[in-house]
C-alpha cells in the first residue's frame, strides 16, 4: 500500500515532500543530481512580473543552526518562467506550485493569472511574506485586511487553487490565517523566514548587504511548529509546513502539529539529496510509529490532547 500519497486542493501528490520556494531554483540544478519525478511537488522560485536582479551581495550569512538570506526575489520574470522554465519542468512527472510575488496588487494579479494557466502548475503559492523586499510587500503579509483582499483578487483570476504563504513576523498568526481563509485561500504554506541580522565584528557592518535577511533552517523549526499547531486548529484549509526540516522525524513532527505536507528549504544546500532521502525513509518510520498512512499523523498533537481532556472530563 502507498503510505505517502496525499490529496490537497489542486494537488494529487505521490508523497508529501517538496522543495521550498527559493531553495531549488526552477529545478534544473537538482535535476542533474536525481530524478525530479521522485518529488511530491516542486515549489519554484518566486516569480514576479518583470525580471529582477535582486539585492546586492553578500546575500547569505550563516547563523547558529540557520542562515540569513536576502536574495531579493531575483528571478527571470513571468514571461521567461512561463516560456522556458515551466515547459522544461514538464518533462518530469511532478506537479509545480508556482510562487507568486510582487510589489503591488496588480503585479500579483498579473502573474497569478498567467502562470496559473501553465499546464504543469497545479497550485499557486502567494508569497505575501517576503522579508527582503523593501517596497510594498510587508503590508501584504502583516495586515489581515490587506492579505484578505489580495487573496480574494488573486483567487478571482487564478485557474488553480491558491495557497497563501504566511509570514511568521506577526503578533497574531491565527488572525492572518483566518483572514486569508476568508479571502478564499485553498490552503496555507507556512512559515516564511523570520527577519534577522548579523553584524561582522571586524568591519562593524551588517554581514548581508541588504542589512537584514530572512532567517531559515533548523533554528526556526520550533516557531514554525508552534504556529502550525495554533493555526491548524483554527482554520479548515490544509497547511503545507516548512522551516528547518532536516529529517523524516521532522516531517512527522510537522504533521503532528497540523501540516498535511512538508517543504524542505535550507537543508537542500547542506544535503542536496535530502528530499529523496526523506521520501525513502518515511514509509518505514510511519509504520514503526503504528500508522498505515501518513495522513493519519496530521494534527495528532492537538487531537491527542483533545482526546485526553475528553477522557478525563
Amino acid at each position, binding site marked *: 500500500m502507498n503510505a505517502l500519497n496525499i490529496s490537497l486542493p489542486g494537488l494529487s501528490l505521490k508523497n508529501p515532500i517538496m522543495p521550498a520556494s527559493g531553495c531549488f531554483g526552477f529545478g534544473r540544478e537538482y535535476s*542533474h543530481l536525481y530524478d525530479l519525478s521522485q518529488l511530491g511537488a516542486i515549489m519554484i522560485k518566486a516569480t514576479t512580473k518583470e525580471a529582477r536582479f535582486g539585492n546586492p551581495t553578500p546575500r547569505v550569512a550563516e547563523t547558529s543552526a540557520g542562515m540569513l538570506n536576502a536574495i531579493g526575489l531575483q528571478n527571470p520574470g513571468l514571461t521567461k518562467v512561463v516560456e522556458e522554465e515551466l515547459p522544461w519542468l514538464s518533462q518530469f512527472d511532478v506537479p509545480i506550485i508556482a510562487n507568486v510575488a510582487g510589489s503591488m496588487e496588480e503585479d500579483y494579479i498579473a502573474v497569478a493569472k498567467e502562470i496559473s494557466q501553465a499546464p504543469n502548475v497545479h497550485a499557486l503559492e502567494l508569497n505575501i511574506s517576503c522579508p527582503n523586499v523593501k517596497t510594498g510587500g510587508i503590508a501584504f503579509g502583516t495586515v489581515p485586511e490587506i492579505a484578505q483582499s489580495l487573496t480574494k483578487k488573486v483567487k478571482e483570476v487564478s485557474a488553480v487553487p491558491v495557497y497563501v504563504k504566511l509570514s511568521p513576523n506577526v503578533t497574531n498568526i491565527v488572525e492572518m490565517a483566518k483572514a486569508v481563509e476568508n479571502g478564499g485561500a485553498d490552503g496555507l504554506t507556512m512559515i516564511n523566514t523570520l527577519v534577522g541580522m548579523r553584524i561582522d565584528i571586524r568591519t562593524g557592518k551588517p554581514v548581508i548587504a541588504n542589512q537584514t535577511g530572512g532567517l531559515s533552517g533548523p533554528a526556526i523549526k520550533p516557531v514554525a511548529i508552534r504556529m502550525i499547531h495554533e493555526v491548524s486548529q483554527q482554520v479548515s484549509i490544509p497547511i503545507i509546513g516548512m522551516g528547518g526540516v532536516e529529517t523524516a522525524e521532522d516531517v512527522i513532527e510537522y504533521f503532528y502539529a497540523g501540516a498535511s505536507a512538508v517543504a524542505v528549504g535550507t537543508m537542500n544546500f547542506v544535503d542536496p539529496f535530502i528530499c529523496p532521502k526523506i521520501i525513502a525513509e518515511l514509509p518505514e518510520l510511519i509504520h514503526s510509529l503504528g500508522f498505515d498512512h501518513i495522513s493519519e499523523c496530521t494534527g495528532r498533537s492537538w487531537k491527542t490532547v483533545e482526546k485526553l481532556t475528553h477522557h478525563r472530563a
Partner: protein
Amino acid sequence: MIKQEICQVIDQREIATNIYELTVKGELVHEMTEPGQFVHVKVNNSLSPLLRRPISIANIDQSRQTFTMIYRAEGKGTSLLAKLKQGDLLDVLGPLGHGFPVDEVESCETALLVGGGIGVPPLYELSQRLTANGVNVIHVLGFQTKNAVFYEEEFKQLGATYITTADGSYAYSGLVTDVIKNENITFDVLYTCGPTPMLRALEKENRHKKVFLSLEERMGCGIGACFACVCHTGDDPTGVSYKKVCSDGPVFRAGEVVI
C-alpha cells in the same frame, strides 16, 4: 558530473601559519577535469556550522584518486576542518563550477599566474596543466607575511616564481602588480585568483590582454539554485542579467562580470 561523496582523509598538514594542506580520496576525483573548479565541503556532521564551505581544488592525482585542498583555518568551519586527521571522513560535493580555460594559451606561449593569499591554491593545478601543455608559466604570488607563504618550491619547479609579501618580511615587498611592473613581466594570457582589489587592479592594468579571473562570493547551495552568489554581467552592469559565481564561474573572462 557533480557528485556527493564521503571521502577519506589521506593526509593533512599545516604548511604555513594557519594554512592547511588537506588531501582526500574519493571516486569523485574522476570527475575533476578542469583546474580552478572547487568543492563544497561539510566540515562535520552537525548543524554547527550549518553550511558547506567552498574550497578550491589545488591538486588532482587521478592515479591515486586523491585531490588536495589548501585553505586558511580562520572561522568556525575551516578551524574544524583543520582538525581532521588521516582516516577521518569528509562529505564533499563537487567538482563545482567552471575552471580556468587551459586551451586559451598555446604551447610555447607564456602564461602569467597571479595569486593572492588563499587565492594561490587553484593556480597550482592550473600551472601543472599548462606546463604539461608546453606553456611557459610565470608565477607571481602575494602573501601577507613571511609565515603565510606556502608552495614556493612547488611553483618554482614549474616555472619562474616571484613571491612578494605585503609587509616585506620575505622576498619582494608590496603588491603583486608592483612586482609585475618592476620586473617587466610580459605574457600572453593572465590567470589570477585572490582578493577582489587585486583582481580589479589586474583587470584594469591589462585591458587589452586575455585575462581570466577566479572570483569569491558567499554561497548557499554552491550549484546554482539559490541565487546567493550572483554578479552583474559586464554588458549590463546595472540591469537584470547576471552570472552565478558557483555555476557560471568561479572563473570568468575579464569584463564578463562586474567585480
